[in-house]
C-alpha cells in the first residue's frame, strides 16, 4: 500500500501542454491573449494580482483549447477590483482564486465580453470565489454568469457571498444562449449567510422574462453546504433543465421550480438535520417531474416545506405563478420531514389548483407522529396511488397506506424507512457528492465563521480603558473576562470587529461606564456576547441619541449576532432618546438574544429594529429572542420590529418573547410608536408568560406570508390593549386573571381563560379588552416525571405482558421486594464503616425504596407505596437530630454513611422513590418529608460540605445529581441551580486535598453538574479517571440527565458538549475485553464489567434516549437485566420485536482531557478477530486522584484472558476484613507505582518521582496512529516529562500475518537521554514459564529487589545475563503459549 502511494505521487506531475507562457502582469497577459493560438497555455505567475481586469478572448479547438491557468494552485489570487470575462470558444480556465475584494462590474466571472460576444464550448474548473463581496450589502452582483452554449462549470468553490445577487446564474437573454446544454457539476457551493432580502439565491437558471424558453442545463453532483441566502436555494426559471444527484446540506429554503416547464428533479438528497427553515422541493408550472429524491429532517413549513405543490394564478402573467399541471411526483422518500404542503399559497389571486398530476409510491416517515400533510385547496386534480407513511394521513381519502416502519441506515449512511424486511429507498446515485469530492481539492473548506469562545481567555482589571485595550488587542473568538468588582471606564469607543465574548468572572460585579456616544460599536465582521455586566449610563455625554451598543453606521456585508445574558442596564437618562441597542440601515443580525437581564430608567428605546423602511421585504434581524428579562421605566418602546413590502423570499423576522416583565413602558412624549412593543410584518410572533403593568399597548400589523402569531399566558394591568391591524390570522390564547407572584418563573400558572380568539380579518382594526371573569385552574408538575414518567408507566402497563424480558425481571424484583417487606423496615442509627451492618442496611434501604416506588407505579399496589412512605417517615424522624457519622475517615463525612458520597447515593435513589409516590402522599405529608428530611439532606450535601459538593470529581457528580434530582421532584429551583452550577461561595483553599491525595478545587473555580460534564470527559466520551470509575460515575450523570431531560427538556442535556454523555456509554462499552470486563486502568478492581447495575442502566438509557443502536440490545440481553422504567420498557420491547444485533467493538483512540488534547487511550483489536487479541495502550493524563504513574504502558489480552496484565488497584471493595473495604496502603506503595506496570522505570523511581501535583501537570502525546489497516495497526506516543532529561517514545504494532496463529505485537520502545542511568522494563506476564534462552540463576534466599517506589514489594527469584543477542522467553497461560523475544 505504502509503496503504491509513492508511485502515484510521482506520476501526478505531468500536466503542462504544448506552449506555455508565464505572464507576470496585465500587459504580459494581454499580449499573450492576443498571440494565443489553439493549445496555448497562459500561466498567471504566483502572487497577488491586484485590480486585474482580465479578458480571455480567442478560439481554441476541441483538442487544443486555449488555457488560462496559474503557476501553482492556491498561490495565485485575484484581489481588489479584479474580474474575468471570457469570449470565443474552447477556452479553459483553471485554478483562479478571487478573494479580498469585489468586482466593480456586475459579474466576477462572465461568459461574455459584451452584449453580443459570448463564450461557447468553454470550461471553468477548479476556480474559487471566496467572500468576494461588495461591502454594500444591497449593491447587487453575480459571481458567475454563464452565457453562450455548451459550457461546463465544474469543481469550482463558491463561498461566502455577503451582498445581494445570485451566486451563479445562467442567462438566457439572447438566442445565442437558449438551448445551451451547459453542465454545472461537482461544484462546492459553500456557506452563504442569510441575506434577509430577495436576491440571495445560490443558483438561478433564467428569469421570468425568458421562462418560456428551453435552457436544457444539467446541474448534477454538486454539494450545497448551508446555502442560507434566501427562500430559493435554486430558482429554476426556464424549460427542460435537469437537477440530478445534488446534495443540499442544511440549506434553508427549497429547490424551487419558480418558472419554466418540463424540469426533471431526481436523485437529490436534502439533509436538513432539523435546522430551522430547511425545505426540499417546491413545484410550480407544468410537466414537472420529481422522482427518487430523499429528504431528512426538513422542518420548514409553508413554502419551505419538504415537498410543496403550489396553487397557480389563472392566466398568470409571466412573473406570477403558473398552474401546476401534469406533475409527476414518484418514489420520493422523506424521513422526519415535517410538512408536505398541497395547494400552498391558495388565496384570492392564486386560485388555480393543481391538475392532471400524479403522486405515486412516495414514502414518508415521522418519528414523532404529527400532522404531515396540509391541504390548502381542492386536491382532486392530483391522483394518489401506492403512497405510504408510518402514520395515518386522514386528509387524503385514498392512495395512502399506513404501514409499520422502522428506521435503518442504508449503505450510504442515510436513514431509510424499513417495512418488514424491506428497506424503502429512492434510487439514488451510488456516488453521492460530498464536501471532499466537490470543489477544488486544494482549497480549504474549513468553516470561516469563528465561533464565540473559541479563542483564548484574557483577564482584565478595572480602570480606565483597560477594557478598550483588551478589545483592541483581542483575536477572533477570545473571551475577555472582567475579573474585578468596580468600575471599568471607557473614554474611547471600542470597535468590535470579530466575535468576542465579554463577561464578568463568576461572582464578580463589574460596572461599565462610557464617555462616548456608545459603549461598543459592532462593525463589519464583529459579533458580541455580553454576560454579567452592569451598564451604567451616568458618564455618557449630555446630548441626545446615545446608545449602549451600536452597529456600524455603514453597510455590513457580514451578518452579526448579539447575545446579552445576566446584564443590567440602568441610568440611560442623561438626555433624551438614549437607546440600548441602536442599529443602522444595511445591517443584519442573525440573532439578537437577551436573557436574564434588567433594563431600567431609559429615555429611548431598548431596541428599534426598524431601519429598513423601503418596504421591499428587507429587515434588520432574523431571530429576536427575549427571555426572562425585566423592563422598567422605559420612555420609548422595548421593541420595534419592522419588515415592510410584499416580497415572500425571506423567512423572518421571528420574535420569541417569554417570561418577561414590563413596568411603566412607552409613555415618553418622543415614543413615536405609542406602543410598548410594535411589530410590523413580523413572520413569527410568540409572546408568552409575561406581565405588562402600566404599559402602552402591543401593536401588531399582520401582513404577507401567513405569519404565525401566538400570544399566551399574559397578565395585562392598565395595559389593556393588544392592537391588531392587517389582513392575516392570529391567535391569542390565555390571559391571566390573577397577578402572578413570581413573574419570571414557571410557577406562575394560575391563569384566566379568555375565550381563545382566532380571527381572520380583512383590513380592520380590532382591540381586545380583557375580561375579568373566567375559569381558572392550576397547572402542576406531573408525577412521576423523573426517571419513570407517566408516559413510561402507561407504556409499561400496556406492553409488559408481551415483553417477557421485562416481565421476568419485574417479577424477580417483586419477589425480592415482597420478601423484604415481610422482613420489616429497619432504619438503624448509623455507626459502621463500609461492609458493617448499618452501612449495608442503609444501602439496601435505598435500593429497596427505589424499587418499591417503581412497583407501586407499575402494579398499582398501594402496599409498595406504603412501604416507601413508612420508611421515609422513619428517616424523617431520625434525620433532623442525626449527628455527623462517627467514623472519622473521610474528608467529607456523611450522616447515614461514613462519607457524603454514600449519602448522595441514598438521595439519588430516594428521589426516584419520592417521585413515584409523590401523588400518593397528601400535601401535608409531603411538606413534612421535605422540611424534615429531603431539604436538610440536600443542604447538608451541598452547603454543609462544599469540599465535597463544589468539586470536579466523581464524588461531586453524585452530590450534584442527588441535590438536583430531589430538587426536580420538589420543584425547588434553588436546589436545581445549585446542582447545575455549583455553590457560588465555598471558602475552600486551592491547596486543599482529599483523603486519596487529590486536589479539591478546580483551578478555574468551576463546579456543579455542567462543569463536571465539561472537565473530566473528553470529546470522545473518555472519562479521565478511566473505565472503572467512569462506570461508577456514569450512573448519576445519566440518571440526573434523564431527569433533566424529562422535567426540563429546554436544557437539552443530552446535546450538551456535543452529546458527550451518550458518547461516554459507547466509549465505556468499548473499554471492555471479550468477556465484557473493563480494562483495569488506574485504580480499578478487576472483574468489574458491563454486567454491573450502572451499565444496565447506562445501556438502557443510551438506547432509549440515544439513537436506538440495535447493538445495545444484544448487550442488554447478555446483561439479562433491564431498568424498570421508560428506557427499560423500550429496550425490552425492541428485544421482543427481534431488533437486537451484535454490538460492534472496534479499534479506536479515545482522547483524554476536556478538549481531547491531553493524550489518550488506544485500543487495538485485530480486525476480523477482534474478540481475540486486545492491546490497550495508555498515553493519557494523570487521571485525577485515581491515576497511576504508568505513562506509555500497555496491557494485552487474548480471548478475555490477560497475557500481560495491569495490576489494577490494591483494595478489596466492601470486604470489611480488609481495611473496611477501603484502599489498602499497598495501593500507594505498589499499585500506583511505575514498576507495577508494563513500562519503563528509570533509576528505580516512578514517573514524576510519584509526585501527584507534578504528574497532574503533564500528559503524554500521541505521535501518530493508524488503525485503518486490518493487516497492521499501529499506535505511537511520546512522553517527555516523566523523567528529567529523558524522552520516551513507544510504538506498538499489531501485525496480522497468516504465518502466525494470532496477530503478533511488536513493541519498539526508544529512550533518549544524555546522562547515564539505569533502566528497568518490566513485563507482568500471567502463566507459567516454559522455556528461556537465559539460564536464570535461582536465589537460595529471597530478598526484596529494592527499597521504594514499589521495588520493596518484589522478591528477586532469579537473575540471568543475556547470553545471546536475542533472548526468548516462553510461557503458558489458559491453554495458549506466549513467546516473548
Amino acid at each position, binding site marked *: 500500500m505504502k509503496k503504491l502511494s509513492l508511485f502515484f505521487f510521482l506520476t501526478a506531475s505531468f500536466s503542462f501542454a504544448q506552449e506555455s507562457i508565464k505572464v507576470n502582469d496585465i500587459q504580459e497577459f494581454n499580449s499573450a491573449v492576443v498571440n494565443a493560438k489553439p493549445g496555448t497555455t497562459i500561466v498567471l505567475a504566483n502572487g497577488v494580482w491586484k485590480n486585474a481586469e482580465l479578458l480571455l478572448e480567442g478560439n481554441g479547438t476541441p483538442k487544443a483549447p486555449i488555457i488560462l491557468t496559474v503557476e501553482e494552485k492556491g498561490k495565485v489570487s485575484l484581489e481588489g477590483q479584479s474580474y474575468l470575462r471570457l469570449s470565443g470558444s474552447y477556452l479553459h480556465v483553471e485554478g483562479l482564486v478571487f478573494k479580498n475584494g469585489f468586482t466593480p462590474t456586475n459579474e466576477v466571472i462572465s461568459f461574455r465580453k459584451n452584449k453580443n460576444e459570448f463564450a461557447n464550448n468553454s470550461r471553468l474548473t477548479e476556480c474559487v470565489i471566496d467572500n468576494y463581496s461588495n461591502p454594500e450589502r444591497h449593491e447587487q452582483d453575480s459571481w458567475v454568469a454563464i452565457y453562450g452554449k455548451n459550457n461546463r462549470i465544474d469543481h469550482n468553490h463558491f463561498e461566502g457571498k455577503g451582498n445581494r445577487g445570485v451566486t451563479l446564474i445562467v442567462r438566457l437573454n439572447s438566442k445565442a444562449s437558449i438551448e445551451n446544454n451547459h453542465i454545472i457539476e461537482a461544484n462546492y457551493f459553500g456557506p452563504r449567510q442569510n441575506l434577509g432580502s430577495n436576491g440571495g439565491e445560490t443558483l438561478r437558471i433564467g428569469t421570468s422574462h425568458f421562462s418560456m424558453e428551453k435552457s436544457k442545463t444539467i446541474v448534477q453532483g454538486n454539494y450545497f453546504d448551508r446555502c442560507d441566502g434566501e427562500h430559493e436555494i435554486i430558482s429554476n426559471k426556464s424549460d427542460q433543465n435537469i437537477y440530478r444527484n445534488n446534495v443540499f446540506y442544511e440549506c434553508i429554503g427549497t429547490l424551487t421550480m419558480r418558472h419554466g416547464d418540463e424540469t426533471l428533479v431526481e436523485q437529490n438528497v436534502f439533509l436538513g438535520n432539523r435546522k430551522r427553515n430547511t425545505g426540499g422541493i417546491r413545484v410550480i408550472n407544468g410537466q414537472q417531474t420529481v422522482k427518487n429524491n430523499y429528504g431528512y429532517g426538513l422542518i420548514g413549513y409553508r413554502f419551505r416545506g419538504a415537498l410543496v405543490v403550489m396553487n397557480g394564478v389563472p392566466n398568470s402573467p409571466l412573473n406570477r405563478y403558473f398552474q401546476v399541471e401534469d406533475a409527476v411526483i414518484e418514489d420520493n422518500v422523506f424521513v422526519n420531514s415535517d410538512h408536505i404542503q398541497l395547494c400552498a399559497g391558495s388565496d384570492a389571486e392564486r386560485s388555480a389548483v393543481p391538475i392532471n398530476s400524479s403522486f405515486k409510491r412516495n414514502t414518508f416517515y415521522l418519528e414523532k407522529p404529527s400532522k404531515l400533510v396540509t391541504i390548502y385547496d381542492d386536491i382532486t386534480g392530483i391522483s394518489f396511488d401506492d403512497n405510504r407513511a408510518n402514520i395515518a394521513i386522514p386528509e387524503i381519502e385514498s392512495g395512502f397506506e399506513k404501514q409499520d416502519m422502522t428506521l435503518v441506515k442504508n449503505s450510504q449512511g442515510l436513514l431509510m424507512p424499513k417495512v418488514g424486511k424491506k428497506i424503502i429507498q429512492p434510487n439514488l446515485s451510488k456516488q453521492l457528492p460530498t464536501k471532499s469530492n466537490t470543489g477544488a481539492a486544494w482549497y480549504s473548506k474549513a468553516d470561516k465563521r469563528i465561533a464565540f469562545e473559541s479563542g483564548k481567555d484574557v483577564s482584565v482589571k478595572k480602570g480606565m480603558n483597560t477594557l478598550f485595550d483588551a478589545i483592541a488587542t483581542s483575536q477572533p473568538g477570545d473571551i475577555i473576562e472582567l475579573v474585578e468588582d468596580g468600575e471599568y471606564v471607557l473614554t474611547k469607543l471600542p470597535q468590535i470587529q470579530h466575535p468576542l465574548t465579554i463577561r464578568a468572572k463568576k461572582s464578580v460585579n463589574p460596572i461599565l461606564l462610557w464617555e462616548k456616544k456608545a459603549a461598543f460599536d459592532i462593525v463589519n465582521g464583529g459579533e458580541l456576547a455580553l454576560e454579567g455586566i452592569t451598564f451604567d449610563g451616568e458618564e455618557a455625554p449630555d446630548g441626545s441619541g446615545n446608545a449602549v451598543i451600536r452597529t456600524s453606521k455603514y453597510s455590513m456585508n457580514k451578518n452579526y449576532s448579539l447575545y446579552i445574558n445576566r446584564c443590567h442596564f440602568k441610568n440611560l437618562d442623561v438626555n433624551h432618546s438614549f437607546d440600548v441597542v441602536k442599529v443602522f440601515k444595511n445591517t443584519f443580525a442573525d440573532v439578537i438574544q437577551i436573557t436574564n437581564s434588567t433594563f431600567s430608567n431609559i429615555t429611548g428605546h431598548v431596541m428599534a429594529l426598524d431601519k429598513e423602511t423601503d418596504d421591499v421585504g428587507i429587515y434588520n434581524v432574523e431571530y429576536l429572542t427575549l427571555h426572562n428579562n425585566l423592563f422598567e421605566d422605559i420612555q420609548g418602546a422595548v421593541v420595534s420590529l419592522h419588515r415592510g413590502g410584499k416580497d415572500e423570499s425571506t423567512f423572518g423576522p421571528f420574535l420569541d418573547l417569554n417570561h418577561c416583565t414590563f413596568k411603566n413602558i412607552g409613555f415618553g412624549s418622543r415614543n413615536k410608536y405609542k406602543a410598548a412593543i410594535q411589530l410590523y410584518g413580523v413572520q413569527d410572533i410568540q409572546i408568552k408568560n409575561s406581565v405588562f403593568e402600566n404599559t402602552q399597548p402591543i401593536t401588531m400589523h399582520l401582513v404577507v406570508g401567513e405569519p404565525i402569531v401566538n400570544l399566551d399566558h399574559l397578565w395585562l394591568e392598565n395595559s389593556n390593549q393588544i392592537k391588531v391591524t392587517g389582513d392575516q390570522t392570529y391567535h391569542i390564547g390565555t390571559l391571566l386573571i390573577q397577578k402572578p407572584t413570581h413573574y419570571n418563573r414557571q410557577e406562575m400558572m394560575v391563569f384566566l381563560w379568555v375565550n381563545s380568539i382566532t380571527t381572520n380579518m380583512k383590513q380592520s382594526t380590532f382591540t381586545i379588552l380583557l375580561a375579568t371573569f373566567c375559569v381558572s385552574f392550576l397547572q402542576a408538575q406531573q408525577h412521576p416525571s423523573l426517571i419513570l414518567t407517566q408516559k413510561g408507566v402507561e407504556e409499561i402497563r400496556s406492553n409488559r405482558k408481551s415483553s417477557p424480558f421485562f416481565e421476568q425481571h419485574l417479577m424477580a424484583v417483586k419477589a425480592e421486594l415482597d420478601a423484604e417487606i415481610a422482613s420489616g423496615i429497619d432504619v438503624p442509627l448509623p455507626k459502621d464503616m463500609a461492609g458493617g451492618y448499618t452501612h449495608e442496611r442503609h444501602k439496601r434501604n435505598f435500593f429497596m425504596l427505589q424499587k418499591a416506588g417503581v412497583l407501586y407505579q407499575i402494579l398499582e399496589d398501594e402496599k409498595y407505596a406504603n412501604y416507601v412512605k413508612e420508611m421515609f417517615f422513619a428517616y424523617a424522624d431520625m434525620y433532623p437530630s442525626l449527628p455527623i457519622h462517627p467514623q472519622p475517615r473521610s474528608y467529607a463525612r456523611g450522616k447515614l454513611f461514613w462519607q457524603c458520597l454514600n449519602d448522595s447515593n441514598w438521595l439519588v435513589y430516594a428521589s426516584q422513590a419520592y417521585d413515584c409516590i409523590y401523588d400518593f402522599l397528601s400535601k401535608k405529608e409531603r411538606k413534612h418529608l421535605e422540611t424534615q428530611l429531603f431539604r436538610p439532606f440536600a443542604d447538608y450535601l451541598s452547603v454543609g460540605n462544599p469540599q465535597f459538593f463544589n468539586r470536579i470529581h466523581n464524588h461531586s457528580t453524585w452530590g450534584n445529581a442527588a441535590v438536583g434530582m430531589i430538587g426536580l421532584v420538589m420543584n425547588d429551583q434553588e436546589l436545581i441551580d445549585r446542582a447545575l452550577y455549583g455553590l457560588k461561595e465555598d471558602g475552600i483553599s486551592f491547596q486543599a486535598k482529599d483523603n486519596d491525595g487529590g486536589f479539591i478545587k478546580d483551578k478555574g473555580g468551576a463546579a456543579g453538574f455542567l462543569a463536571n460534564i465539561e472537565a473530566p470527559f473528553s470529546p470522545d466520551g473518555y472519562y479521565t479517571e478511566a473505565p472503572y470509575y467512569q462506570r461508577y460515575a456514569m450512573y448519576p450523570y445519566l440518571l440526573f440527565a434523564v431527569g433533566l431531560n424529562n422535567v426540563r427538556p429546554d436544557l437539552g442535556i443530552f446535546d450538551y458538549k456535543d452529546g458527550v454523555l451518550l458518547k461516554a456509554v459507547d466509549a465505556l462499552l468499548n473499554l471492555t475485553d471479550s468477556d465484557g470486563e473493563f480494562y483495569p486502568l488506574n485504580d480499578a478492581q478487576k472483574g468489574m464489567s458491563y454486567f454491573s447495575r450502572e451499565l444496565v442502566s447506562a445501556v438502557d438509557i443510551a438506547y432509549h434516549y440515544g439513537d436506538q443502536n440495535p447493538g445495545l440490545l444484544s448487550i442488554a440481553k447478555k446483561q439479562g437485566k433491564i431498568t424498570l422504567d421508560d428506557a427499560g420498557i423500550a429496550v425490552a420491547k425492541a428485544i421482543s420485536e427481534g431488533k437486537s444485533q451484535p454490538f460492534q467493538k472496534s479499534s479506536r483512540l479515545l482522547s483524554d482531557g476536556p478538549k481531547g488534547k491531553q493524550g489518550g487511550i488506544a485500543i487495538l483489536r485485530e480486525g476480523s478477530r477482534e474478540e481475540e487479541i486486545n492491546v490497550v495502550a495508555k498515553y493519557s493524563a494523570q487521571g485525577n486522584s485515581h491515576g497511576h504513574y504508568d505513562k506509555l504502558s500497555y496491557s494485552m489480552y487474548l480471548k478475555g484472558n490477560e497475557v500481560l496484565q495491569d*495490576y489494577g488497584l*490494591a483494595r478489596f471493595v466492601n470486604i470489611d476484613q480488609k481495611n473496611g473495604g477501603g484502599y489498602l496502603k499497598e495501593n500507594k506503595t505498589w499499585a500506583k507505582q511505575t514498576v507495577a506496570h508494563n513500562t519503563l522505570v528509570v533509576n528505580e523511581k516512578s514517573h514524576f518521582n510519584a509526585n501527584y501535583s507534578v504528574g497532574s501537570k503533564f500528559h503524554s502525546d500521541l505521535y501518530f496512529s493508524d488503525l485503518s489497516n486490518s493487516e497492521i495497526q499501529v499506535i505511537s506516543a511520546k512522553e517527555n516529562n516523566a523523567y528529567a532529561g529523558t524522552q520516551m517514545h513507544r510504538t506498538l504494532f499489531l501485525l496480522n500475518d497468516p*504465518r502466525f496463529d494470532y496477530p*503478533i505485537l511488536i513493541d*519498539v520502545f526508544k529512550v533518549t537521554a544524555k546522562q547515564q542511568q539505569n533502566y528497568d522494563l*518490566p*513485563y507482568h506476564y500471567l502463566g507459567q514459564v516454559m522455556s528461556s534462552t537465559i539460564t536464570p540463576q535461582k536465589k537460595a534466599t529471597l530478598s526484596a529487589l529494592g527499597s521504594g517506589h514499589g521495588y520493596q514489594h518484589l522478591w528477586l527469584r532469579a537473575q540471568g545475563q543475556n547470553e545471546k543477542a536475542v533472548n526468548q522467553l516462553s510461557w503458558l497461560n489458559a491453554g495458549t503459549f506466549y513467546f516473548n523475544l
Partner: protein
Amino acid sequence: MLFTQLGANDPEFNLRNDPSFILRRKATESTLFFSVVEAHGSYSPVSEIAKNASSSIREIKTLLDNENYTVVQISPTKGQVLMVCLSNQNADPKESHQINLKGKSYQWVGPYIIFKS
C-alpha cells in the same frame, strides 16, 4: 533479565503473588528496547496434547537506531522477512523518507512502513 514475584514486605497478604520479568540495562544513555510478543498454539489438559508449542519467529534484530529513524527486523521461521521502519521525528503522513542500509536505499511516505523481503 530479572525474574520477580510480588509479595515482599507485605505482612497482611494484601498483594497477589504475581510473577514478572524485568529487562534491565545499567548505566546506559540512549537505548532501544525492541521486543515481540507472539501468542501461539494451544494445550489441552484433557488430551494432553500441545499443539504448535514453539514459536514461529526465528530471530529479531535492530538494524538502525538513531535520532531520526529506527529500523528493526523480524525473521519468521519461514517466508519473507519483515523490516519495520519508523520515522522518529516527523509523523506527517505525507512526508517522504529515505534511508540507506547496507548499500540499499529504502523509500516510503508517512511515519512508518513495513517492508517484506
